[in-house]
């Protein structure tokens, strides 16, 4: 049983570090959002699974389950509203061949 906890904790740490690295090195908003939403959600969910396994079957498990459910719903919605915010601000997605065109807000800052 302990090895499951260790395994999920290890997965959580690895996904978290790679997600942060992706957010740092990717070229534009949408690709950064890809790294952040996928990797960070998976890492936090694995930490929750590890915590549920470590706590055993008690009131703790139920409450962590509620938190995980809420996070499972709210994280993709948060990613979607950030993406729609950027899409409505008319930030042009980065392409492999062409360069990006600077938007109004980027020029101002």
């Amino acid at each position: 049983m302990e090895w499951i906890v260790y395994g999920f904790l290890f997965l959580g740490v690895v996904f978290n570090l790679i997600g942060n690295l992706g957010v740092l090195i990717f070229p534009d908003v949408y690709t950064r959002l890809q790294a952040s939403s996928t990797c960070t959600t998976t890492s936090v969910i694995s930490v929750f699974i590890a915590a549920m396994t470590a706590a055993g079957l008690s009131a703790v498990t139920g409450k962590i389950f509620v938190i995980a459910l809420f996070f499972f719903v709210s994280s993709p919605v948060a990613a979607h509203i950030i993406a729609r915010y950027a899409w409505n601000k008319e930030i042009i997605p980065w392409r492999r061949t062409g360069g990006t065109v600077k938007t109004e807000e980027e020029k101002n800052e």
Partner: protein
Amino acid sequence: MKKTDILDVISRKLAPFILLFGMYLITYGHLSPGGGFQGGVVLASGVVLLLLCQGTDRVQKLFPLPVVNSAEALGFLAFLLMGFAGVLFGGGFLSNFLPVGKAGEVPGAGFILILNLVVGLKVGAGITLICFYLFKE
């Protein structure tokens, strides 16, 4: 067919649970972290979530402005009444006069539970009112 909006559907399914969680924080305020003020703020945040996702009109139909306004005033009045009832029956202002049960149970707190409910009503209605007036523009 009406347009599908993600925020609309999500806020509709999520807001009742947030309101219930605020009620839970108020009720269990003496056993776990939470209490009247925090529970009231969570209640208000449920209304704010609806306000942000659905627009003012539908929320005003659910929580009409005069009702929220009078609930806020009623909360203040009830708090004062509770305090002076403590003066009348027990020792001083806000002192306990209800029977106290065993420690660690929900209804065993006597006075505190009702006081938390009143404070939660007052704070939730107050912050909801602030957000209504600000959002009306």
